C-alpha cells in the first residue's frame, strides 16, 4: 500500500474528512469550487436570474440522466437518447401541427419513447446483444428517420397553450420545467426505493444470476428499465420542443455523453448495481454550472469541450483512486 493510500485510509476515520472524501461530496465540492470561481470571474454569474437560467437549461439533461441512472444501475447503457429525443420532438411537433389536442401530443411523445425503449430492451435481452451495440444502432435509425420524415426541415409549433403549460408558466415565480423536474425526481426516487422493480434493478445490475435465482424475471426488469428510459426521453422531448417552439432534426449535441458522464460523476458504478438518483442530480448540476459559467466567460465552444472532458476524466480518476479499497 502506498503512503498516499494509507493516508486516504487514515483520513476516512475522521468523520468530516470522510464526508469530504466521499465521491458524492467530491462532486459537491467541485460544484462549490466552480460557483466560487465563476462568481469571481463574471459579474453576471452569481445572480438569481442566472441560476434559474441554469436550472431551465439543465432540465432536459436532468430528466434524461434520471433514466440513464436506471439503465446504468441495471448494468446496461443507452447511447441512443440524443437522436431519439430529436425524433420524438418531431413526432410531438407534427401532432400539434395537425391541430390535435395537447393530450394526444403527450401520448404520442411518451408512447413513442416507451416503444423505442421497449425495442432496445427487447433486442438486448432476447437477442443477447450488448445494449451498447443495440442502442448505437437505434441512434442511427432514429437520426435517419428524423431526416427522412422532415426533409431536414424544422417543424414549428403554433400552440400557445402548449408553450404556456410546458415552457413559459412560472408557478410561484419558478419556471414550470423545474416543477416537472422535481415531480419526476420524486416519482423516480419512490420507484427506486419503494417498489419491487426498483430493488430488482439494483439486484439485476449487481448480480444477474443471483437475481434470477431469487425468482426475479431479470429479462423483464431490463426491458422495463429501457422502457422507463424511453419515457424519460419522451418527457424531455416534450419540454424541449415547448422551450424551442419547434421540432428540430438536429439532436442536442452530446446529450448521451453528458448524461452518462453525469450519472457516473455522481458515483453510480458503471458496471451496475450501485448508485442513486440524488447522486446523479449533483453530476448534472456540475455539468450545467460548467456549461453556463464557461459560456458567460465567453470561452470558445471548443475550449469548453476540452475543459469539460478533462474535468470529467479527472473526477472519475479521483473517484477510482478513493474507492480502490472497496
Amino acid at each position: 500500500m502506498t503512503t498516499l493510500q494509507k493516508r486516504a485510509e487514515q483520513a476516512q476515520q475522521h468523520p468530516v474528512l470522510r464526508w469530504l472524501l466521499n465521491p458524492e461530496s467530491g462532486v459537491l465540492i467541485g460544484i462549490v469550487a466552480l460557483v466560487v470561481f465563476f462568481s469571481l470571474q463574471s459579474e453576471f454569474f452569481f445572480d438569481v436570474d442566472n441560476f434559474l437560467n441554469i436550472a431551465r437549461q439543465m432540465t432536459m439533461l436532468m430528466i434524461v440522466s434520471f433514466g440513464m441512472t436506471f439503465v446504468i444501475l441495471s448494468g446496461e447503457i443507452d447511447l441512443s437518447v440524443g437522436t431519439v429525443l430529436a425524433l420524438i420532438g418531431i413526432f410531438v411537433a407534427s401532432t400539434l401541427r395537425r391541430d390535435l389536442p395537447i393530450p394526444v401530443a403527450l401520448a404520442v411523445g411518451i408512447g413513442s419513447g416507451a416503444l423505442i425503449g421497449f425495442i432496445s430492451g427487447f433486442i438486448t435481452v432476447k437477442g443477447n446483444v450488448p445494449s451498447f451495440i443495440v442502442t448505437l444502432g437505434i441512434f442511427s435509425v432514429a437520426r435517419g428517420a428524423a431526416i427522412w420524415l422532415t426533409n431536414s426541415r424544422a417543424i414549428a409549433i403554433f400552440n400557445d397553450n402548449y408553450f404556456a403549460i410546458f415552457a413559459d408558466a412560472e408557478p410561484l415565480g419558478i419556471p414550470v420545467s423545474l416543477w416537472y423536474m422535481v415531480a419526476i425526481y420524486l416519482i423516480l426516487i419512490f420507484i427506486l426505493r419503494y417498489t419491487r422493480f426498483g430493488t430488482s434493478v439494483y439486484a439485476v445490475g449487481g448480480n444477474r444470476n443471483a437475481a434470477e435465482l431469487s425468482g426475479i424475471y431479470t429479462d423483464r426488469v431490463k426491458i422495463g428499465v429501457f422502457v422507463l428510459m424511453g419515457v424519460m426521453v419522451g418527457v424531455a422531448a416534450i419540454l424541449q420542443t415547448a422551450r424551442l417552439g419547434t421540432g428540430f432534426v438536429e439532436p442536442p449535441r452530446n446529450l448521451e455523453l453528458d448524461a452518462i458522464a453525469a450519472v457516473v460523476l455522481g458515483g453510480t458504478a458503471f458496471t451496475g448495481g450501485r448508485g442513486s438518483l440524488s447522486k446523479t442530480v449533483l453530476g448534472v448540476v456540475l455539468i450545467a454550472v460548467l456549461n453556463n459559467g464557461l459560456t458567460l466567460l465567453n470561452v470558445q465552444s471548443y475550449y469548453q469541450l476540452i475543459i469539460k472532458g478533462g474535468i470529467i476524466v479527472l473526477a472519475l480518476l479521483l473517484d477510482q483512486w478513493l474507492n480502490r479499497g472497496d
Partner: protein
Amino acid sequence: MTPLIRIRNISKGFPGVQALDDVSFDVKAGKIHVLMGENGAGKSTLMKILAGAYQPDTGSLEIDGQPAQMSSPIRARELGVGMIYQELTVLDNLDVGRNIMLGQEPVQEPFGRMDWNKLYQQAGDILTSLDLQIDPRAPLPSLSIGEQQMVEIARVTLHDPRIMIMDEPTSSLGKHEEEVLFDLVRRLRDRGVGIIYISHRMEEVFMLADTITVLRDGHHIATQPAADLDRAELVRLMVGRDVDEARQQDTKTDRGDVVLAVENLSDEVQLQNISFMLHRGEILGLAGLVGSGRTRLARHLFGSGEPFTGSVQLDGRSLKLTHPNDAIQSGIAYVPEDRKGLGLVLMMDVGNNLSLASLDKNAVAGVLNRAGMMSMVKSWVKRLSIRIASVKQTVEKLSGGNQQKVVLAKWLTREPRVLILNEPTRGVDVGAKAEVHALIREIAEQGVSVLMISSELPELLAMSDRILVMHEGKISGELSSTEATEEKVVALAFGEGEPV
C-alpha cells in the same frame, strides 16, 4: 532403475485445509501411472505442483535423480513436464497448425516474419508422429471434441515432454473417441514417456493403468501395480475410514407423505431417467462426484436449467418449471453451491439480500412495505444469529458462515415445502458449520423436505435420512442411513453397481 520423477515428502496447505501432507511416491518412465482419490483428496493440488503452478510448502521433486525446482509453469515445461487439463485450452479462432505451434511459431529473417509453410509442416510432422489424421490447416471448430483434444496433446508433445500429466482427459469424450485417446496414451507410453493419469472411471483405470496411486485427504495411501489391485480393494483404499463419525442419533424410519416426486427426468446433455421421491420432513442426501450431474438435477428442479423431459410433482400436482419463480411460487427453494456468484448480490446490503426472494410477499401492487421488510429481516438475523453490525452492511465482507446464513434466511422467509441445498457448508468454518447443520435438522423437523447435495461424505452420512448416489447422469444407487457407509457411497459414485 532410477525413477523418472521422485516425489518426496510434498506438503501444501491453504488457509483452513491441508491439501497435501507428506506425499511421496515415484513415477517410472514408460508407464501409465493412474492417480485416484475422492473429491478433495489432493490430486489437483499435486498436479499443479508438478506443473509448476503451485509451490510446495515442504518437500522436493527429483527428475532422473536430479533435484528439480518447478518454480514456474515455464520452468516445469523446460524440465519436461507436459500438462493436459480437463477443460480444453485450444483456441477456437485459430486453425490446427497455429494452435499446435502457438508461442513457438517459426520465423524467418529479416524482420521476424512468420514462416507459414514451415509452421504447417512442423505441425503436420507432429500430428503424423502421433498417427493422427488431422489436417494442420483445418479450422478448429471443424474438428470433433475428441480431435480437438488430440490437437491439445499434439501441442504438448511439441515440447517433447518426458512426463505427461492428464487430468480426466476423457470427461468430455464419447466412447469411440475414448478408444482413440487410449491408443494415443499407450503410444506415448511406449515411446518412454511417463504418464500420470487422473481418472474417476474404474473401467478406464483398469484398462490403462500400469501402476495406481491412491490419495486420501491429502495423504498418500498406496502405490501399487494395477495387477495387484481389484475394484473393491481400490474403493477401500480411497475411502479408508472405518469409523462412521457423528451418525445421526434418531434416524427416522417412518417417513412422512411424499412431497416431491420426480419421474424419468432426462435432459439432452447428461441426465438420464432420474426418478426419486422426497418425503415430508426428510433429509435426502445426494452424493456423487463433481460432474456427476447433481447440480444439473438441482437446477432443473428449481427451473433454472435447460429444458428437460419427465415429470416433477409437488403434493401430487405436476409442476411446470421454466423459471426459478415457478419453483419458488410452488414452495421450492434452492441454495446454490456458489455463494458469491449465485447466492448473493455482493454489493447489496444484508437487508436487501435477505429479502430478495420474498419481495412479492412484502409488496402490494409492486410497492414495498419497507418497514415490514425490515422487521422481517431483523427477526431472521436474530433467529439464525447472523453476526453483523447492521442490516445496512454490505454482505461482501461478511465471513463465509454469515454469508451462508443470509442465503439460508433468504429462503426460509418463504417458508418453503422443499429446500434444495447445494454444498451448504462449503467454505464455512467449523463453528458456523455446526450451526448450519443444526439449522438444517431443525428445518426438517418442522416438516420441510430437504434435498442436500454435498461432496463431503461424513457430512452427508451424518445428516441424511437416506442417500441417493449419482454417477454420470444417472442414479446409481440408493442407501438408507442404516446401510450407508463411505465405502458403499464411493463405490456407487464411481459407477460400481455392486456395493462392496
